[in-house]
C-alpha cells in the first residue's frame, strides 16, 4: 500500500516536472547566470578602455557608486518617475473607466481612440512628443501657448522630468483604462441597483461600490506598470539622454551610461546589483499583493 502511494506520487511529480522543466530551467538560467556574472563583475576592476587594469576590487566599485551623488539623483528620479506615473494613471484610469462605462453615441470608437497609445512603441511616442508636441518653436503645445499670448515653454530644458512623466503617463494611462474598464464591466448591475434603491447617488456608488470592486484590478495595474516603469529607458534615450545634467537620469539610464558610454563594466555592474536589490524590495510587496489575488 505504501508502495502504491509512493509510486503514484512520483509519477505525477515526474509528469509535472517534465512539463514545467523547459520554462523553469530557462528562466532560472536567464536569471541566475547573468546575475551571478553581474555580482562577479561588480567586485572586479573592469574597464574596457583600460584593459590593463584588472583584478579583484572588493567593494571599491560600490564605494565609488555610493559616494557618487549621481546614484542618489538617479534613484530619486526613478522613484519620482514611477510614483508620479502610477498616481496619474491609476487615478486617471479609474475616472476614465467610469466615464467610458457610460452609454453615449460612438462610445466604442471613443474607447478605441483612448486606448491607442498603449500600442505605440515607446521610441515613436517619445519622438512624437519631443518633436511635434513639445518642441520649443515648432511644437503644437508652444503654438497653442503663443496663440493664447503665453510664452512658449521649452519643455525638455525647463521641465525635463515633468516632460518625461507626461510622455510615460500618456503611454500607460490607456493600459490602466483598459484593465479597469474590464473590471468595471464585471460589476454586477444588481449591486448598483440595490445601492440606488438604498438611496446612493452617483458619488456614493463610486466610492462604496465601484472603487471597492476595482481594488484587485487596481493592484494588478500597479504591479504590471511597476514592472515596466522601473526600467523606463527608451523614452529617456530618445528625448533627453538623461539630461540636462542628471535631471532625467534614472537608474536604468545611469547604468547604461556607465556601461556602454564609459565602458566601466565594474561600476555598471555594481549599479546593476543596486537596481536588482531595489527591484526586489519592490517585488516582495508586489508579489504578496498578487499572491492574495491568487488565493481568492
Amino acid at each position, binding site marked *: 500500500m505504501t508502495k502504491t502511494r509512493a509510486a503514484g506520487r512520483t509519477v*505525477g511529480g515526474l509528469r509535472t516536472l517534465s512539463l*514545467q522543466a*523547459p*520554462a*523553469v530551467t530557462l*528562466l532560472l538560467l*536567464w*536569471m541566475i*547566470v*547573468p*546575475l551571478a556574472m*553581474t555580482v562577479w563583475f561588480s567586485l572586479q576592476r573592469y574597464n574596457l578602455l583600460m584593459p590593463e587594469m584588472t583584478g579583484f576590487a572588493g567593494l571599491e566599485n560600490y564605494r565609488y557608486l555610493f559616494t557618487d551623488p549621481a546614484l542618489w539623483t538617479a534613484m530619486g528620479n526613478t522613484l519620482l518617475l514611477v510614483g508620479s506615473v502610477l498616481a496619474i494613471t491609476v487615478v486617471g484610469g479609474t475616472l476614465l473607466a467610469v466615464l467610458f462605462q*457610460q452609454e453615449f*453615441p*460612438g462610445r466604442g470608437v*471613443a*474607447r478605441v*481612440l*483612448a*486606448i*491607442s497609445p498603449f*500600442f*505605440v*512603441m*515607446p*521610441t*515613436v511616442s*517619445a*519622438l*512624437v*512628443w*519631443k*518633436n*511635434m508636441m513639445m518642441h520649443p518653436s515648432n511644437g503644437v503645445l508652444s*503654438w497653442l501657448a503663443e496663440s493664447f499670448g503665453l510664452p512658449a515653454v521649452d519643455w525638455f530644458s525647463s521641465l525635463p522630468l515633468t516632460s518625461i512623466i507626461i510622455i510615460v503617463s*500618456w503611454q500607460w494611462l490607456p493600459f490602466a483604462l483598459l*484593465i479597469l474598464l*474590464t*473590471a468595471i464591466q464585471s460589476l454586477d448591475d444588481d449591486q448598483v441597483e440595490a445601492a440606488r434603491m438604498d438611496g446612493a447617488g452617483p458619488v456614493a456608488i463610486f466610492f462604496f461600490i465601484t472603487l471597492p470592486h476595482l481594488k*484587485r484590478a487596481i493592484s494588478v495595474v500597479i504591479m504590471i506598470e*511597476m514592472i515596466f516603469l*522601473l*526600467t523606463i*529607458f*527608451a523614452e529617456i*534615450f*530618445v*528625448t533627453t539622454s538623461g539630461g540636462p545634467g542628471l535631471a532625467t537620469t534614472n537608474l536604468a539610464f545611469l*547604468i*547604461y551610461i556607465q556601461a*556602454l558610454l564609459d565602458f566601466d*563594466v565594474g561600476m555598471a*555592474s555594481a549599479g*546593476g*546589483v543596486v*537596481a536588482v536589490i*531595489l*527591484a*526586489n524590495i519592490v517585488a516582495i510587496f508586489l508579489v504578496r499583493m498578487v499572491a492574495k489575488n*491568487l488565493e481568492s
Partner: protein
Amino acid sequence: MTTAKTKFPATAERMPPQAAGVSPLRSAFARRLGLTALGWAIACLIFFPIFWMVLTGFKTESAAIADPSLIFSPTLESYIAVQERAGYFKFAMNSVVVAFGSTLAALLIAIPSAYSMAFLPTRRTKGTLLWMLSTKMLPPVGVLVPIYLLFRDVGLLDTRTGLTIVYTLMNLPIVVWMLYTFFKDLPKDILEAGRMDGASTLQEVCFLLLPLTLPGIASTGLLSVILSWNEAFWSLNLTSSKAAPLTAYIASFSSPEGLFWAKLSAASTMAIAPILVFGWLTQKQMVRGLTFGAVK
C-alpha cells in the same frame, strides 16, 4: 387600456416631485449631451499625438515644421522617401522575424508549463508562478553588462537569433501567466472526460485544450508580439545595424541631423500601424488575460 389609464396617474403621484421648471426629459438630454462631449473630447485629446503624427506623415517637410495647420495639400513624398531608404524594410523585417519568432518560441515553452500548473497543481505551483513573475521584475539593466559580454563572446550580438532569445525569455513569465489564467478557466471536467475517453496527455492538449482555449492563446501571443515589437531596451543595446528592429530605426531619428519630421512621421506610422490595428481588434481578450484572473 382602462387599467393603464387609471394606473398611470397613481404611479406618477408617488414619484418624487421634480425641481420646479426643469423638465426631466431636458435634464436627461443635457446630461447625455455633456457625457458625449466629455467622452469624445478626452478620447480625441489622448489620441491627438497619434493623429498628428499620421497627419504630418502626409505633409511636405516644410509644411511639417510650419505652424500647425489642418489645411495642407497631402502628399505621399515622405512615404516614398522612407521606402527608398532601403533600410526601412530591413528594419521592419527584423521586427517581424524577431517579434513572431520569440512569440512562437515563448508559446511552445509556456504551453506545457501552463498546462501542468493549471491542471496538475502541486504545493509548489503557486510559488513557481510567483517566482516566474518576479524574474520579470528583475531590471534588464541589472543584467545588461553580462548579457552584452556573453553575446559578444558567442557572436550573438546584433543578430536576430540573439534578440529572439532575449525576447523569448523576457516575455516567458507573462506568457505563462496569461496562458495559466486562460487554461484555468477551462472546466476541468472536460479534460477529465477526455481522459475517461482514453486521451493521452498529448491528445488531451491537441484535441481539447488548444482548440478550446484558442482565443486566449491567440491574445497571449498577440500581447507577446506587441511587447516584442515595441521593446526598446534590448534592441537599442544589443543591436546596431544588421539585426536592428524598427524601434532602433525610429530611435535613429532622435539625432539632430535626423530632424525630418514628415519622414519620421511616415516611418513611425508604418511602424505602429499593424500593431495598432491588432491591438484594437483584440483588446478585450488580451486584457482579460492580463488581469491574471483578478477580473472575470
